[in-house]
C-alpha cells in the first residue's frame, strides 16, 4: 500500500473514518460508548500526528513521510500523501481541535430534542469530517485532494443543518452553494492540468510533484490559478466572498464553529500556498496586486464590521475574516518573514479562535443569548471565565508573548519589506482589533453586574478541560514560537526561493 515503510499518514487520515464506522456499529442508545470511541479515536490521531511531527526532519525542505500507491493508473490518478514544513503543523492542530470538539460535544449538541438525542449520527459525521480535513492537508494527488475537499462538505452540511441554530437551514444552504460554486471550477482546472500533462508527456498525471515541473504556456498559469484561487478565496474567505461565513459560523453549534474557524479556514490558506504559490507561481504573481488589495480591504472592512456587531459570535466571526485576510496578504507577499508568519499564524489563529468560540459557547450556555447588550459584569460571578476570555482575547489582539503576536508581526515585517504602504494599512488592523475585542470584552465581562448574570456559574469540569490546553498553547507558542518556525524553516526557504525565481513584488 505504500512504499516508504509504516503508513503513518494514512493511519492518521483514515483512523477517524474507522472510528465513524465503529460508531455506526455501536447501538443507537449507547451514548457513552459512542463518545468514548470518538474521544479515543481523536486522541490516538492526535498522538499519531504529534509522532509525525517528531519524525519530521526539520532541516529538509521537501515532502516527507510520503506514501504512494497507484489508484486509477489508466488516468494517472494515484494515492499520494505527504507533508512538508508548511503543512506539518496543520495535522496536530486539526487533531487537537477535533479532540476539543469531541469534548465540547460531551453534553448533547443541538437546538431541539430530536437533534440532541441523535448522538450517534452526530459523532459519525464529526469523525468523517476529521478524515476529510486531514486528507486535504496530506493529499498530494490533485484528484485525491479534490475528493477530500468535497467529501468534507457533506459532514459539514449535516453538522450545521441538523445541529445548528434557528437559521441553520439558510446558513447551510448558503455555505453549501457558496463552496460548491467555488470549487466547481477547481475540478475543471484539475482536469485541465492533467490534460496539459498528458499533452506534454503523453501520460495523464495528477501527481502534485510531477505537475510542479510542468512548463505551462502563459496565460495558462493565470487562469488555472484563478480557478483554484476562487475555491480557496471562498474557503478562507477573502473579501467579497465572505458573506457565507458569519451565517455559517453563527448558526453552527459551538464545537462545529470551533472546527470551521480553527481548521477549515486554514484549508483555503493552505490551498493558496500548496496549489497556488507552488503550482502556479507566475499566476499568483500576476494576481498578487489584486489579492493584496482584497486582503487589505478584508482586514479593515471586517474589523470595522466586527466593531459594530451586536452578537458576540458575529464579532469573533468577523475578527476571523480580518485575521485570515492578513494571512492571505502574507502568502501574496511571499518572502521569508511573511511566509514564516503565515505558518505561525495558521496554527496560532486556529488555537485562539477556537478558545474564543468556546468562550462564546459558554456565554450562550449560561445566559441563553449571545447579544452583547444582554451581558454585563460577568467577570464578578465567573472569575475563571473572565480570565480565560481575557487570555484568549489577548492572544487574538496579538499581545507580544502570546501566540497571535508572532505570526501577525512576522507577516507585517514581511509585508513591510515588500510594499510598505500595505504594511501600514494592514497594521491599522492592530488598532481596530484591540478596539473591537476590548470593547466586546468590556461590555460582557466588565461594568455593573447585569441582574441575570449575577448567578452565572463559573467554569468547571469540562469547561476547563477544553479550555486549558488551548490557553497553555497560546502562551507556550507565544514564548517559544521556534517550536514551529524551526521545523518549518527549510520549507519556507524553498518557498521563498521559488517565489523569488519569478521576480516577486517590487
Amino acid at each position, binding site marked *: 500500500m505504500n512504499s516508504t515503510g509504516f503508513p503513518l499518514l494514512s493511519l492518521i487520515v483514515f483512523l477517524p473514518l474507522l472510528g465513524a464506522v465503529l460508531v455506526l456499529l455501536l447501538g443507537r442508545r449507547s451514548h457513552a460508548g459512542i463518545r468514548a470511541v470518538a474521544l479515543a479515536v481523536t486522541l490516538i490521531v492526535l498522538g499519531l500526528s504529534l509522532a509525525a511531527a517528531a519524525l519530521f526532519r526539520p532541516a529538509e525542505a521537501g515532502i516527507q513521510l510520503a506514501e504512494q500507491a497507484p489508484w486509477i493508473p489508466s488516468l494517472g490518478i494515484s494515492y499520494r500523501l505527504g507533508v512538508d514544513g508548511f503543512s506539518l503543523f496543520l495535522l496536530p492542530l486539526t487533531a487537537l481541535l477535533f479532540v476539543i470538539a469531541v469534548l465540547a460535544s460531551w453534553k448533547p449538541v443541538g437546538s431541539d430534542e430530536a437533534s440532541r438525542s441523535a448522538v450517534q449520527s452526530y459523532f459519525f459525521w464529526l469523525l468523517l469530517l476529521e478524515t476529510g480535513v486531514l486528507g486535504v492537508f496530506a493529499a498530494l494527488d490533485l484528484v485525491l485532494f479534490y475528493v477530500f475537499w468535497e467529501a468534507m462538505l457533506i459532514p459539514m*452540511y449535516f453538522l450545521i443543518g441538523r445541529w445548528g441554530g434557528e437559521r441553520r437551514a439558510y446558513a447551510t444552504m448558503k455555505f453549501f452553494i457558496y463552496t460548491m460554486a467555488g470549487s466547481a471550477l477547481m475540478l475543471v482546472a484539475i482536469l485541465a492540468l492533467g490534460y496539459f500533462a498528458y499533452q506534454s508527456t503523453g501520460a495523464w498525471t495528477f501527481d502534485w510533484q510531477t505537475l510542479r515541473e510542468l512548463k505551462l504556456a502563459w496565460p495558462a498559469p493565470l487562469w488555472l490559478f484563478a480557478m483554484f484561487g476562487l475555491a480557496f478565496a471562498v474557503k478562507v474567505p477573502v473579501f467579497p466572498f465572505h458573506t457565507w461565513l458569519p451565517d455559517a459560523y453563527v448558526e453552527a453549534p459551538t464545537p462545529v464553529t470551533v472546527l470551521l474557524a480553527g481548521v477549515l479556514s486554514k484549508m483555503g490558506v493552505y490551498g493558496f500556498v500548496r496549489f497556488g504559490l507552488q503550482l502556479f507561481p507566475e499566476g499568483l504573481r500576476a494576481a498578487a496586486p489584486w489579492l493584496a488589495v482584497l486582503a487589505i480591504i478584508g482586514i479593515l472592512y471586517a474589523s470595522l464590521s466586527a466593531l459594530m456587531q451586536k452578537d458576540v459570535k458575529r464579532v469573533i466571526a468577523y475578527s476571523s475574516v480580518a485575521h485570515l485576510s492578513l494571512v492571505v496578504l502574507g502568502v501574496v507577499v511571499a518572502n521569508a518573514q511573511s511566509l514564516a508568519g503565515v505558518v505561525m499564524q495558521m496554527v496560532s489563529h486556529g488555537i485562539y479562535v477556537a478558545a474564543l468560540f468556546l468562550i462564546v459557547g459558554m456565554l450562550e450556555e449560561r445566559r441563553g443569548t449571545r447579544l452583547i447588550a444582554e451581558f454585563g459584569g460577568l467577570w464578578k460571578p465567573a472569575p475563571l471565565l473572565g480570565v480565560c476570555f481575557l487570555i484568549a482575547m489577548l492572544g487574538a489582539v496579538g499581545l507580544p508573548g502570546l501566540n497571535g503576536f508572532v505570526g501577525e508581526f512576522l507577516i507585517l515585517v514581511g509585508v513591510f*519589506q515588500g510594499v510598505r504602504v500595505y504594511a501600514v494599512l494592514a497594521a491599522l488592523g492592530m488598532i481596530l482589533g484591540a478596539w473591537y475585542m476590548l470593547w466586546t470584552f468590556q461590555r460582557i465581562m*466588565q461594568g455593573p453586574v447585569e441582574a441575570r448574570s449575577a448567578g452565572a456559574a463559573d467554569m468547571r469540569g469540562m469547561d476547563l478541560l477544553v479550555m486549558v490546553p488551548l490557553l497553555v498553547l497560546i502562551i507556550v507558542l507565544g514564548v517559544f514560537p521556534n517550536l514551529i518556525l524551526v521545523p518549518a524553516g527549510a520549507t519556507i526557504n524553498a518557498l521563498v526561493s521559488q517565489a523569488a525565481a519569478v521576480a516577486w513584488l517590487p
Partner: protein
Amino acid sequence: MLAYAWLMLLFPLLGVLINAFFGRRIGKRAVSWVACSAIGLSFLVALGVLMGTAGSTGVEQPLFTWISAGSFHVEFSLLLDPLSALMAAVVTGVSFLIHIYSIGYMAEDPRYARYFTYLNLFVFAMLILVLANNYLMMYVGWEGVGLCSYLLIGFWFERKAAADAGKKAFIVNRVGDMGFALGIMLIFAMFGTLQFSEVFRRAPGILGPAAVTAITLLLFVGATGKSAQIPLYIWLPDAMEGPTPVSALIHAATMVTAGVYMVARNHVLFDMAPTTAAVVASIGAATAFFAATMALVEKDLKRILAYSTISQLGYMFLAVGVGAYAAGMFHLTTHAFFKALLFLAAGSVMHAMAGEINIQKLGGLREKLPRTYAVFAVGAAALAGVPLFSGFFSKDEILWRAFLHSPVLWLVGLGTAFLTAVYIFRALFVTFWGETRAEKKLWEHAHEAPAVMSIPMLILAVLAVIGGYIGLPRLSLVEGYLEPVLHAEHAAEAGATEWVLLAVSALIALGGIALAYYLYVVRPAVPANLSKQFAPLYTLLSRKYYVDEFYMAVVVEPLRQVGRFIAELFDPRVVDGAVNGLARLAGVCGEGLGTLQNGRVRSYALSILVGVVIILGYFLLR
C-alpha cells in the same frame, strides 16, 4: 553579580505564578509576603547589577532564541549597562515601596491576590522592557506594561468609568505602539537585525538623514503613547480610576517614563536626527506647559497629579530632545521619588476620607493627618523646585541645557516651572490648610494610615529630599555613571550664566508658591472671582481644551458610523445581496434556490457521499 541578573526577572515571575494559581487559597498575608519579597529580592539583584555595571559599556546575556524566521532572528537577551541598571534599580526600588504600601491600602479588597498578581506582572514586564537588548524584546515589555496598566486601571471593573478608562488607555497606547512597530519594521528593513548594539554600531554607515528621521519619528510616536505626550496624552488623566498605589507606580514613577528611557536608549539614532530631536524637544515643552495649565483648575487631587505627571514627562522629553539624556534620566529618577510620594500621600488622604478626592470637599487636613501633610509638603516642594529639594536640581539641569539649546524652550520650561509651583501648592493649601469642607462624619473618622503605608511614604520623602544630591551640577553622579552609555557632552563651563539661571528658577518657584499662598490662603475668594471673570478660559482649561471631544468627533464616531454602515447595511444588503441576487438569477434560469431548498441539496450531498464511498471503497478493496 551580573551573571545572576536574570534572577531580577525570575522573582517577579514566580510571584505572578504563585499568586495567580494559589493566591485565593493561601490567604492575604501569604499573598503579600510572596509579592513583596519577590520584588524585594529583585531590587537587591538590581542593586548588585547597578554596582556591577559601573563604568561598563554594556554586557549582553542571551537567555534563549525567541524567533528565527529566515534572517529575522530575535534573541531574548539581557543588556546590562549603566542606563538599564539605573532604570531597573529605580523601577524595582519604587515598586518595592509601593508593594509594601499596597498591603495596607488594599487590605480590604476582595480581589487582593489578583491585585498583587497584576502588580508583580507589571514589574516583570517593565524589567523586560528595561533590560531588553533588542527592539522586539523591548516591544514585548512595552506592550506587557500596557496590558498591566489596562488591567490595573480597570481593576474595579464593575465601575463603568474604570473599565472605560482601562480600555481607552490600551487603545490609545496601541496607536502609539503601531508607530513603534512600524519603526521596528523599518529598522529591520534597513539593518537586517534588531539588536541595539548592532544597530547603533552600524547606524552611521547605513542610515541617511531621511531614514534616520523616519525611524526616530516612528519610535517617538510610540513614546508619545506610553509617556502620555501630545497628541496621545488623553488616556493618562482617566487612568486615575485605578487604585492609587497603581497610579503612583505605573502612571507616575515607572511605566510612563518608558518613552523617555526608550529615547535615551536610542540616543545614537536621535543624535543623528536633528529634525526629530527638535520635534521631541518642542512636543516635550508644549506638553509640559499645556498639562500644567490644566492642572491649575482641576479639582480632583489625583488628576492634578496626573496632569503634573504629563507635564513633568514633558520636561524629560525636552531634556532628551536637546540631547541632555543624562539630565532626562536624572529628572526621571527624582520624579519617580517625589511623584510616587505625592500619589501615595493622596492615597493616604483617600484612605482617611473614605475615598474622597475632590479637594474642594477636603481642607484643613493637616490637623488630622500631620504625617501625610508633612510628606505631601516635601513632595510638593520637590516638584515645585524649591531649592535644595531633589526636583530643584534635576529640573534646573534641564532648564540650563534647554537654555544652551534655545532660549525659547528655556522660557517655556521656566513658565511651566512657575505654573507647577502654583498648581501643586494650590493643591496643598486647599487640601490641608484652612477650614475643612469635608462632611462631618468623614472628618471625625479621619485617621492616619497604618505604619505599613506611612513607612514607604517616609522613605520616599527622604529620597525626594536627598535624591537630588546624586546629580548636583558638576558633581553629577548620574551623569558620570551614565557616561559610558550616553557619552554626555559636557556643557561648556558656564560660570556666571548657570548660576544666574539657577537663581532665576529658584525665584520663579518661590514666586509661584507665594502666588498660590496669596490666592488660596490669604484671599480665597479671588480664584472663584477669577474663574467667573475669565469663564471661557476657565471652561477651556477644565474641559482639557476639548481634546477628548475632538477625538471622539473626528476619529471614534466616524469609524463607528462606518462600522455600523458596513455591519448593518453594506455587508448584508450590498455584498450579500449581490450573492443572493446571483443565486436568484441562477434560480430563474432553471434550478431555483427554492427548489434546491426542497431537499435537492441533500440528495446532491448524498450522491457525492456515495461517490466518495465508492471511490474509496474501490481503492481500499482493490
